[in-house]
């Protein structure tokens, strides 16, 4: 605690030097979700090991089978079905509750504005990708998140809901028979549940690379919530302080 900082609110006239990027609730839920999802994937793989049927291939020809024996052995995923289930059904609730709280907070607080893609999102996301690959000089306009981020982050929320729903369907296929039917049957729901897991891992790899690319202050903003204004942002703020001309 620093008495001088907490007792004295910053004077409203001064624009300040750092802007809030992530409210406290979002930061907590993001960082709680990370280990929870890791536990879900880890325990899920221990369950999957018992009947590891999925592969990429056609007919008798297999390009890649999920997963090679060495994968299970190195990560100690083999012969732990009972524990896998025990962890999965325990942490699944924490994952679900955290996800519901996150969506609820995002909607109620208005944070959804920053996340929701607009009608230019696909075009902008394409431009962002080109810019990231150094094939385009300027990035498209963006708010807190660029269009590629918005699409991805909304996508990951929908994926989370998909994992919970397919998970519940294969967890209680008789009690929730309507859900199983809605999701195309037990085996199909199980397949979606697995594919979503692969997509989380793919997301994680890209997310991590982008965080590294974006630099420390962006990462630290996810921890402490604020990021120092960039010069152009400070300039934009100064502009908005001057009264805009009246619309005709």
């Amino acid at each position, binding site marked *: 605690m620093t008495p001088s900082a907490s007792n004295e609110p*910053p004077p409203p006239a001064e624009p*300040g030097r750092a802007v809030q990027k992530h409210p406290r609730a979002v930061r907590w839920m993001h960082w709680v979700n990370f280990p929870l999802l890791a536990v879900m994937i880890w325990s899920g793989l221990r369950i999957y090991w018992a009947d590891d049927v999925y592969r990429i291939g056609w007919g008798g020809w297999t390009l890649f089978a999920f997963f090679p024996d060495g994968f299970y052995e190195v990560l100690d995923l083999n012969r732990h079905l009972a524990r896998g289930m*025990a962890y999965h059904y325990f942490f699944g609730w924490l994952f679900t509750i955290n996800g519901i709280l996150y969506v609820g907070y995002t909607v109620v607080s208005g944070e959804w504005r920053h996340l929701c893609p607009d009608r230019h999102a696909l075009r902008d996301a394409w431009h962002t990708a080109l810019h990231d690959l150094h094939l385009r000089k300027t990035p498209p306009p963006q*708010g807190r998140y660029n269009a590629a981020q918005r699409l991805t982050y909304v996508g990951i929320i929908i994926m989370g809901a998909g994992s919970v729903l397919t998970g519940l369907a294969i967890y209680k296929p008789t*009690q929730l*028979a309507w859900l199983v039917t809605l999701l195309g049957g037990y085996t199909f729901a199980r397949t979606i549940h697995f594919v979503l897991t692969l997509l989380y891992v793919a997301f994680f790899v890209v997310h991590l690379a982008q965080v590294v690319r974006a630099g420390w202050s962006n990462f630290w903003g996810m921890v402490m919530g*604020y990021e120092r204004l960039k010069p152009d942002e400070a300039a934009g703020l100064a502009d908005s302080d001057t009264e805009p001309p009246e619309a005709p």
Partner: protein
Amino acid sequence: MTTPEPPSRPPRETDQERAVRLQAEMLDAPMISEAAFRTKSRRAFVVGGAAALAGFLGWRWIGTQHEVENIPFLLREGHRLNEQLWRGLYNPDRLAPTFAVSRSRMPIANGSLGLRSDLDPDAWMLRVEGPDGALLDTLDLAAVQALPRVEMTTELKCIEGWSEIVHWTGARFSDFAARYVNQLPEGLPYVSLATPDGDYYVGMDMASMMHAQTLLCYAMQGAPLTMFHGAPLRLVTPLKYGVKLLKQIGIIRFSAERPADYWTERGYDWYIGH
């Protein structure tokens, strides 16, 4: 800062206007001074570090607790809480989906625990016991087959993950249990089933046993059970994983206490209800 929108909005905002709006949206958030930023940064370092450490220690704590039936105590409690939740939501009238017989297939015979290959189905007798283990009845297969015959095509789910649609024939357990209603105390909550030598045993809750799709099954895919599928009589229900569907039933005991369960003792959930 929002300005009231004029009633007739221009149909399209220009790219420039959109860029300005997006940046304004981003900056429409609390601002703090450099000094406050530093304070918050320091505090986040301490709180974040403490939270990460607490999470790590909590994780370690779960895995190192004393074990109850081969899994850490807290995870066993998790199974119990899940059981309470889903028992509360259980509706005895809700039926599992049924399928066309043409979609059914003979599943693999997964596991032969407790099965005796030398068992003579003609000499086999089912032993029925009351809560104290007292013998209520012994009966042969013909007596079970004399009960109303039920055919159903439901999906068998293995705890390993695979599933198979199977056509089953048998008698409802509820019809079977009705034979003993006068000999048993009311409201017994459990049933124990075991192979003839007692090598494999499962515990079932009475609600699941009395469900209309819980059968004492004597035929699969229209043919009498083979030895590895549990001849002459096995349990079938779409309310549980295959591990509970005991083959070659030797003993059925109505029970006041929660019966022992082979796989529960090896770390699995006792209820594993569907």
